[in-house]
């Protein structure tokens, strides 16, 4: 078996839940591909700047970050996961707040409608969303952010397939 050493463009088969990297890729692609009823897409707000965990150094604003926390209860024998996908929309200067809020509206729509079942299963359930209050030292107060948490149920292939 050849182990993947790094991710390069087009190296992932999506949608897929065959690995954690592909779960991230699937969620990211779902967000990028989503078109709202008013034909808005995230590309119009953040381009393809949807990063996992954190943006690279000296980022272009606004951007989104994704982060997954996955837990599994013993009742499901470890197969079914309850995952919290945290999406942060970050802008600078604070005049970008309406842009970030609008981008997060599209994220809300995309995640609320999420049912990815072509490989394993990812289903969107509940969500919470907050505009981050203005922060002070040591944070840059001109940065604005909106954070949303989406509760997902996952039956990922990476856990449910056995040889």
């Amino acid at each position, binding site marked *: 078996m050849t182990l993947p050493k790094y991710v390069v463009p087009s190296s992932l088969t999506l949608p897929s839940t065959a690995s954690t990297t592909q779960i991230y890729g699937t969620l990211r692609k779902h967000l990028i591909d989503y078109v709202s009823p008013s034909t808005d897409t995230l590309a119009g707000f953040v381009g393809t700047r949807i990063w996992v965990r*954190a*943006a690279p*150094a000296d*980022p272009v604003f606004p951007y989104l*970050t994704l982060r997954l*926390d996955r*837990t599994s209860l013993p009742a499901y024998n470890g197969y079914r996961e309850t995952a919290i996908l945290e999406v*942060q929309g970050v802008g*600078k200067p604070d005049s970008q707040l309406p842009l970030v809020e609008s981008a997060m509206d599209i994220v809300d729509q995309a995640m609320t409608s999420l049912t990815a079942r072509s490989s394993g299963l990812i289903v969107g359930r509940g969500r919470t969303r907050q505009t*981050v*209050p203005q*922060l*002070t*030292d*040591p*944070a*840059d107060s001109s*940065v604005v*952010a909106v*954070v949303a948490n989406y509760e997902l149920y996952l039956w990922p292939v990476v856990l449910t397939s056995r040889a």
Partner: protein
Amino acid sequence: MSVKVTDMSPQFLKAYRDASRKALDAAANVYEGNLKRRFMKGYYTSQAFRSTAQIVQHVQREEPMFTGNGWSSKVGIPDGIPAVAKAKRGKKVSKSATPRTMVGKIALAWEMGHHNLFSRKWERVEIFKPVAIESAKQMVDTYNRVLNRFLERGRAVK
């Protein structure tokens, strides 16, 4: 001769409400304890404030409140507590030079992530959420144990 058949649901509901309040408080207490224990392993690295000590000092849990969705309690740092700047040699500890800097806001910045003015990097140290996830099962077990104990006690009294 007659047999009186009585609906005991008002007594049960009162006992259940009292027991579930105690159970929720006990579960919140588990989280509060785990949170403070985790802070002892080290926390934020802000140089301008004694962030870790101040945050640990101010972590507390609210009395449970009855809401439309049952009892609710909050564990965290109350709003409005000003950060205290580090004492300089030979001088008294004073309130922060920037009075709007609050302990809760410092914790929030580190938990949510922020562009740090000092390091000029994106910084994030999460403690509240991971501890909540790790504590979930222990909290559920505690809730069930305390609920059962108080319901059993209520039945014995009756």
